[in-house]
């Protein structure tokens, strides 16, 4: 352990400063959410706020978006490189939405406010938030960055206190919903100025030296924890592989995801060199996101709950990330759906480590936001609207000691909420016919994977539908003999006819008429351990609650239930004894819930 504790600051001050830093980023988050104009910020929490050192190191992050763990720090560093310290002044606010800097898409406008204390630059308050629209083509798959909207290089939004109105005017003319965009911009300014004000209060209260030294100790503490937990992982080289369905352009052409992990002593190296080269369709992300994949996985394994994220958390991790892959794409690769592939990269890292640390990983999860976009003209006011309906929430993987959770947002997002159906119906011409758990969608296992969801939405006025959903074919995998889960999927009802056979789960600008409907299905989570080893009473409960069908209970779990749904112990023992474990190989759970739902409201 690298002990750099300073004598200048005591444990009590460190703890008080830690609490203070957290409070600053929490308040930035609260103020952004409450003043934001779009559901993606307020309900989906697609944003990240944070405090950074003057070098751009992460001091404290208020999430938002777990996958943005790296993007903001790297954006601050890029801004420092761009301007140089000599050109960063009190009263400035720096901004960019450059996809290759943030590592994500153009929707992520990222503001950084340099914080000065007694004339000295002491750090940055930053806020990234997802704008609903940034221009570009609507709905279709893009094949370069230029078709994805306005690009703002690193510039100043505010110079020494004076707003750059030219910039604001350029933005306003290039986005479809300028009122919302500029409303969100104002909310982000509230967030960074809140950060500045509260950070300075903390610095004045305890003194800059004590705060600076405390930050250094806090990072060391995070590092110590991560190292201790890494030490406990057996040394070795671990590899795993999975794939994405396709890039939306080359339909049916799988995109391979390969990871290699080397663990030695108290350090880990995650090598993402063999992740697929960047693709033609819009599923690429930038190098900061590639590194974030490794860091998120490492954080989940090495320091999941003990401390909030800061730079120290990652000192024991080395990432090998060459340029030009799907998670380190270069200009002009399209990036609009940056968030989808990285989640599968993370799951694949867990898969690689499943034998080394079975009790610390989870089986595969549904790994997609399942967040369709619709746009059209609202008959209530005759105005153009765009809205994302979701995220649906899906199944998470089972673990060595417990079932996976159902109906929960995927890895990319954290405290992200879906929107109330009542609000959706009050604002847009849609009718939610059904929002339900999918029976049998969780992977079977000693511990069962969580269940995915199904949502059916009817058009009350015409709209265009776009879905960019992946992981229909590469279903969430089980671990240690656990079964795979149902994958993600879509369906369309047009003129009363359901269509559920699609080559992938991607449709672009499909027009639905009143009475037509779409269906979104999220996958479940993979199972853990052989299904035959599941406690029969738990299987009986799952059948009673409708999580698992009687057929699956019998065929996959080999549990015999009587007419009242109770376990027939003798028959179950006999059935389990007479089938070879390998014969009862986990089957795909997808079949049982394939096909259109039966009890749809007529539209």
């Amino acid at each position, binding site marked *: 352990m690298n002990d750099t504790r300073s004598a200048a600051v*005591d*444990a*009590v001050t*460190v*703890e*008080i400063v*830690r*609490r203070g830093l957290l*409070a600053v980023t929490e*308040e930035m988050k609260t103020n952004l959410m*409450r003043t934001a*104009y779009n559901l993606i*910020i307020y309900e989906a929490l697609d944003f990240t706020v944070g405090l950074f050192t003057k070098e751009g190191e992460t001091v404290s992050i208020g*999430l938002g978006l*777990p996958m943005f763990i790296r993007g903001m720090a790297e954006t601050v560093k890029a801004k420092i490189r761009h301007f140089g310290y000599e050109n960063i002044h009190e009263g400035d606010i720096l901004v960019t939405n450059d996809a290759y800097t943030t590592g994500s898409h153009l929707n992520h406008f990222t503001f950084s406010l340099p914080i000065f204390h007694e004339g000295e630059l002491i750090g940055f308050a930053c806020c990234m938030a997802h704008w609903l629209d940034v221009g570009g083509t609507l709905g279709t798959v893009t094949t370069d960055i230029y078709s994805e909207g306005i690009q703002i290089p690193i510039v100043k939004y505010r110079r020494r206190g004076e707003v750059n109105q030219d910039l604001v005017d350029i933005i306003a003319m290039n986005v479809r*919903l300028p*009122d*919302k965009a500029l*409303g969100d911009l*104002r909310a982000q*300014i*509230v967030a960074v*100025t*809140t950060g500045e004000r509260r950070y300075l209060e903390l610095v004045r*209260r305890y003194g800059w030296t004590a705060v600076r030294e405390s930050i250094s100790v806090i990072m*060391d*503490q995070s590092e110590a*924890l991560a190292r201790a937990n890494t030490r406990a992982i057996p040394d070795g080289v671990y590899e795993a592989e999975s794939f994405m369905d396709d890039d939306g352009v080359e339909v049916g052409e799988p995109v391979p995801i390969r990871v290699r992990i080397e663990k030695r002593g108290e350090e880990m190296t995650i090598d993402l060199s063999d992740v697929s080269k960047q693709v033609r369709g819009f599923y690429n992300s930038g190098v900061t996101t590639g590194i974030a994949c490794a860091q998120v996985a490492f*954080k989940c394994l090495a320091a*999941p*709950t*003990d401390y909030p*994220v800061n730079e120290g958390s990652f000192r024991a991790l080395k990432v090998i990330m060459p340029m030009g892959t799907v998670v380190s794409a270069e200009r002009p690769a399209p990036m609009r759906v940056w968030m989808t592939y990285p989640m599968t990269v993370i799951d694949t890292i*867990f898969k690689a480590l499943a034998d080394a640390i079975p009790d610390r*990983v*989870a089986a595969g999860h549904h790994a997609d936001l399942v967040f369709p976009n619709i746009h059209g003209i609202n008959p209530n006011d005759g105005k153009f609207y765009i809205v994302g309906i979701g995220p649906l*929430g899906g199944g998470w*993987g089972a*673990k060595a000691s*417990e079932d996976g959770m*159902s109906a*929960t*947002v995927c890895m990319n997002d*954290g*405290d992200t*909420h*879906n929107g109330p*159906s*009542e*609000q959706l119906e*009050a604002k847009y011409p849609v*009718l*939610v*016919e*059904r*929002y*339900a758990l999918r029976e049998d969608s969780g992977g079977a296992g000693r511990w069962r994977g969580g269940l995915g969801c199904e949502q059916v939405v009817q058009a009350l006025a015409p709209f265009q539908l776009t879905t960019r959903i992946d992981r229909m074919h590469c279903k969430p995998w089980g671990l240690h003999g656990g079964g795979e889960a149902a994958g993600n999927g879509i369906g369309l009802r047009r003129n009363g006819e359901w269509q559920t056979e699609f080559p992938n789960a991607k449709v672009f600008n499909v027009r639905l008429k009143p009475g037509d409907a779409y269906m979104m299905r999220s996958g479940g989570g993979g199972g853990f351990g052989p299904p035959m080893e599941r406690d029969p009473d738990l299987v009986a409960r799952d059948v*009673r609650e*409708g999580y698992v069908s009687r057929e699956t209970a019998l065929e996959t779990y080999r549990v015999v239930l009587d007419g009242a749904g109770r376990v027939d112990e003798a028959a179950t023992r006999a059935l389990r004894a007479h089938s070879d474990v390998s014969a009862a190989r986990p089957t795909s759970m997808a079949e049982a819930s394939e096909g259109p739902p039966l009890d749809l*409201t007529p539209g």
Partner: protein
Amino acid sequence: MTSPGSLRIAVDIGGTFTDLAAFDEQAGALRFGKALSTHHALVEGIEHTLDGAGVALRDGRLFLHGSTIAINTLLERSGARTALLVTEGFRDIYEIGRVNRPDAYNLFFRRHVPLVPRSRRFEVQERLLASGAVHKPLEEEGLRGVLRGLKPQRPESVAILLLHSYRNPAHEIRVKQIVQEELPGVFVTASHELSQEYREFERVSTVAANAYVGPRVSTYLGELSDHLDARGFRGAFYVVQSTGGLFPVAHARRDCVRMLESGPAAGVIGTQAICAQLGLQDAIAFDMGGTTAKAGVIHEGRPLTTGSALIGGYDQALPIQIPMTDIFEVGTGGGSIARLGQGNSLRVGPQSAGSDPGPACYGRGGTEPTVTDANLLLGRLDAEHFLGGEMRLDIAAAERALREKVAAPLGMDPMEAAEGILRIAVTSMSYAVKAVTTERGLDVGSFVMVVYGGAGPLHASAIAREIGIRQVLIPWSPGYFSAYGMLYSDLRYDFVRSCFRRLATADFGEIEGLYAAMEQEGLAAIETSAVRPDSITFERAADMRYVGQEHAVTVELPREVFAAQDREAIKRHFDAQHGIRYGTSAPGEPAELVSLRATVTGIMRKPPRHAVAEGGALPPADALSRRKPVYFRDRGGMVETPVYRREALCAGNCIEGPALIEEHASTTLLQPGDRMEVDSAGNLRVAIGSVVR
């Protein structure tokens, strides 16, 4: 029937103690009582408390009651076998919830667990649109079939949530009637009776919680009613709601979930009463007990409220969407444990030693150092005088725990470590206060902090310094404060109606109609109540936002703006409120209404303020109990400090810090530089010295 007596009796059942405050309207006398809560037999606990305080129920005119029974039933999951009826297609919304995962890097995260399992959730064939229009009529025969099928499972309660019932409750009302016909005697509750705001998950969670706690709470309140009758009580029985307002026991037995936070809300009402007595506009109500600290706010004479709350930890919380007193809670209390984390970080709480085993100094087997142990070691609590000397504390055990678990590994002196633990605890409590003040745009420097709860007065001065508060007030009997607050509660009915309208084009006739209907309902409830209030007041507010925004803020609106149909005035109120809360507003942007809120209050006659004997600036000689060494960091160590008996202090007495003022269930610490004066009501008014900013 004989005429009721003149006693106003308030009983608050808390986690550990049942507290009583009684006011004799004829004699003007105030009495207090305390007994251990008996969770297996609550009525018995009340009886003990009444007996202990020498209060006879036959003398009662009003019986006011708050209890943790509803919240405990939720948290302990000991409620009724409940069934849930929901709109077809939405059986799982209660389980799906909002799909969020706050614990973002933890693969072992947990979600909320519904109070009603999936096998007891049933769909009802019907559908309304967002406009309230019927899209699909209610299929009654199918519903009856479901209920007949349910009967053998012997459900004890049924909750009903139909989509858009906030716009049109007709289907929920009809479903409720059918349930009552098919399942007579079962507790039935429909979402619109509790909340007429959109958000189906929050509403289903609210109505399910009401159904889940309903049978137990209703039975308990029924038993208590019978008991009061049997003991000759001839007055009126009211229950305290989470708003701090009262409602008749008959309503409490139906809308049980409204009494979830009755105790904490009553403390805020007590603070409001003190403000009214002293002519104060703004105050913080701060309550510190064994496991948590809570802060609420009085702003411009009235408690701040919120439209919903989360019950249980954030990750797995069950939302309750009804108006409540806005109270922020942190997991810091006397029992909070100090421990070292990886890399020798010093953490305090949220783990608590509770009352069993309790802090190390309780000598009941606790070995972890706590905030109470730190206070004992620093001389702020006294081993011989804790709870009036009824419980002897083990100072050696406290010292051992602090030394072994914290001080030695950090290379600190145990006294220094103890003082550090208190500073961390104080910082974390100060964030509870900031959360309800500075984070809402309120300038805390102009607020008086009213501090109560057993452990509050010990830390009040330090918290005030941390935040920049200049005045602290320790009320008479801080250990009985929730019960005391109940004596000052008013009858209160709160209503909310979702109503999405652009302000610029909203129809004032429609809005007036909605407000008038809500006010009429409140008025009718108050007029049928057994007690005549002195007067009835009506207050209006609206949840508003800029067009395009998702989140709304609640704006209080004077009645005149409606009479004058003054859209600009409403907009100005909204812009101003938005500016105060978020530091920004957009006067040029159009605004919209989201929900209308009405509060109807039946103002009850208030007991006059309590009075203590007059005295001079110098406390009477017998008030000084002893002198003892107490640790003060600013003074570099132990300082010989006087200890006073609170009950011997007279109005006008002044004491300079450092000093300790002891009473039965609490100790007040004055730090060097503080100056305390006893006011004519017996409150300790502390002017905080050298505020650190």
